[in-house]
């Protein structure tokens, strides 16, 4: 269960959210406001003691998202250089997750409209794609190769050099 921090935003009100598997979480209103969906629900007066249910977000990613929002809401404006760097370090550590969690965060951040987290997870995924062969990418992301062998051969032939496994660079001189 993620706990609220004291320095999060102006409002002291705590917002309750409920994961798809029934777990309850609390976060400061300023943190919840980082989610477009939660903000609209708060504005529509839908945030009550029972908690806002998030039908597609399971407890595991929701705990992470509450963490993310609480941290970012606490440091939302007027950042010093040190604070901005600390937040950057937090983000870098935060997004060091396995592929399953990365998918969960991508889906949940998209669903909840948490823009900063969406960007972070999208960039992390793009960084994971970099430098991998198609087969390595399929393995990393659990993707089924749905090309026919003929199509695959055609694709590889088109830019054969691009599919060669990286060899250590040969000495130039």
């Amino acid at each position, binding site marked *: 269960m993620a706990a609220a921090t004291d320095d999060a935003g102006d409002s002291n009100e705590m917002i309750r959210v*409920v994961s*798809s*598997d*029934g777990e309850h979480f609390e976060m400061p209103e300023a943190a919840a406001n980082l989610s477009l*969906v939660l903000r*609209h*629900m708060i504005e*529509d007066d*839908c945030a009550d003691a029972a908690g*806002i*249910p*998030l*039908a*597609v977000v*399971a407890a595991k990613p929701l705990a992470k998202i509450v963490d993310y929002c609480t941290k970012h809401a606490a440091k939302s404006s007027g950042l010093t250089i040190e604070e901005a760097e600390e937040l950057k370090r937090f983000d870098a550590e935060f997004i060091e997750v396995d592929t*399953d969690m990365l*998918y969960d965060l*991508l*889906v949940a951040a*998209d669903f909840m409209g948490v823009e900063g987290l*969406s960007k972070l997870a*999208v*960039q992390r*995924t*793009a960084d994971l*794609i*970099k*430098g*991998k*062969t*198609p087969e390595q*990418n*399929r393995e990393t*992301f*659990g*993707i*089924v*190769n*749905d*090309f026919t062998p003929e199509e*695959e051969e055609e*694709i*590889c032939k*088109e*830019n054969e*050099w*691009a*599919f*060669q496994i*990286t*060899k250590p*660079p040969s000495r*130039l*001189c």
Partner: protein
Amino acid sequence: MVISRRHPPPPQQKPERDDMPLGDDVLHEILLRVPPLPTTLIRAAAVCRRWRHIVAEPGFLRRYRAHHGKPPLLGFFVNPSGREPLFRSVLDAPGRVPPERFSLHLEDHTELGGNWYYHGCRHGRLILVNWKTGLGCRQILIWDPITRDLRCLSPPPQLDALKGLFFQATVVCAAADMDEGHVHGDDCRSGPFKVVLVGTDRSLALAFVYSSETGEWGDAAEIPVDCISVGSRCVQVGNCLYWMIFGYDNNILEFNLGSQRLSVVEVPMDIQQEHDGLYPITLQEGTELGLIVMSGSCVQIWQWMIGYDGVPGWLPIEAIYLDQLLSLRPGECVNPIKVMAFAQDENVLFVASSSRIFMVYLDSLVFKQLCSVDEFAASPESCPIYAVYPFACFYDAASSLSSE
């Protein structure tokens, strides 16, 4: 919108994952952010049908290029034989585009003999000029190595009367003088272009401009000069192009694409005394004209700017001591007459020592050794090379996928 979400959801079984559980929008955003190295999009498009479909959308490639801004510097061309240009990648594997991917077979397009002079590339287009002693400039080729599109131009008819003159040539994006919101980059490749020829008969400098929109050469622009030759390196600052002009005095020739006028930017004797090479460059992210004065292994950079008194002049900016910067081997020295290129969009200088070619990022002074200077001397007709032609481009899967 919100009411339905207030009902407790049915208990969910976590599905077995056998495919990316992401919407197309999210996947689109992810693929947009893979770094613009030559292999990344090609490999992404070979993962599965869904990825391939997204990468192949014309809208995706437009957004991809816009997202990444400046295209990456892929490598450079050289032309040691006076025939086909050769490509060399400056990237490490797996981003090394092989030379044969950017090969041009001139005999498929022209039967002209004589030498093909290579005049460099700008915004994805390369320009080659056929020149033969006594006959002068006979044909101009504009080549896009990515799409392999090749355009042959006849030289301006006025050149018939100027057969002995050697002309420098450059290709520019036509948007330079018509669209202020246009940012030069990869999109220039598909837009209209201009070719500018400049030469001198020792009393006049002449410039001719071809427009791909009209398909015609315009009238000659002229200015009296006292020079023997026009340098091969050309830089562009806004709407103006600049070349060195060499003679008793060495100055810089300016051609304004908007007004179609030539003028001369003077280089005072005191800054070029005992120089070993003069090269025009750009400074301040391509917005200001600069000049490199080589003296031994020292690169002295000057900037052309308006002084406090309102009078334009040259200001020394920086001196780079290449012999100290590059980790040279015993007996190896910098060759000051081999400042081989300036890639203005990347602010990279290509220099050579007695044995190797390097690229130096002028912003950071980070350098990279590229190849041996002897690498291009393999064939008997090869001449020593004094210039390389940097090529920056998004090597995306567009050309192979867009036809699907």
